[in-house]
């Protein structure tokens, strides 16, 4: 996951590199995702999320649709 100056730069770079257009998150969204995903990582009892838990975390951040589906 890369960070670009703007969506226009994503489009230009994706075309030049023949990379799928994928999904674009705002700066606030990627920070919310990073906080939700990693905020508890230093807790001694941390365990890896189940796919269902991860899917719920995405849904709570409005990351829904086929791109964010963990099970194919």
């Amino acid at each position, binding site marked *: 996951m*890369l960070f*670009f100056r703007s969506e226009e730069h*994503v489009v230009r770079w994706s075309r030049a590199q023949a990379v799928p257009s994928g999904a674009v998150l705002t*700066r606030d969204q990627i*920070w919310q995702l990073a906080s939700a995903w*990693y905020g508890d990582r230093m807790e001694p009892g941390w365990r890896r999320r189940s796919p269902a838990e991860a899917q719920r975390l995405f849904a709570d951040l409005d990351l829904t649709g086929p791109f964010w589906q963990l099970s194919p």
Partner: protein
Amino acid sequence: VTAASELDRRVRLHIYEQFLEDGRPPTAAETGSALGLSNDEAVRSYHRLADRRVIVLEPGTVDIWMANPLSARPTPFRAEVGARWWYGTCIWDALGILAMVRVDGTVRTACPDCDEPLVLTVSNSDIGGDPGVAHFAVPAARWWDDIGYT
């Protein structure tokens, strides 16, 4: 809770604490020595953690490549807290380092399209700094097909 899972819990926490402290992940031998384990026990624990995708090992070795969000290999995503810094495996992870340590800091990267340096700041749990967007090329279901590329 099995003995192995309790041991893996201690090993995992030690890996993260030392990675943050030293700026590099501990070897299995170092972890074994710190936690009073034999080298074999530490190696087996590293492999179990890797099998469960808690850490990622350098191919064919027991050396840690990733303990997400931390990356032992240099990347274009650097998280800084004061004079200390670590590489995140991607923009999500570099910001994740700041979220994980729960302190204010900065993430430095560059736009892959134009190479312009971009600086994100986290202060009091709020994001600021340069505007920009994160791009995910690989759908979630395929992230672990090639985690290095993802």
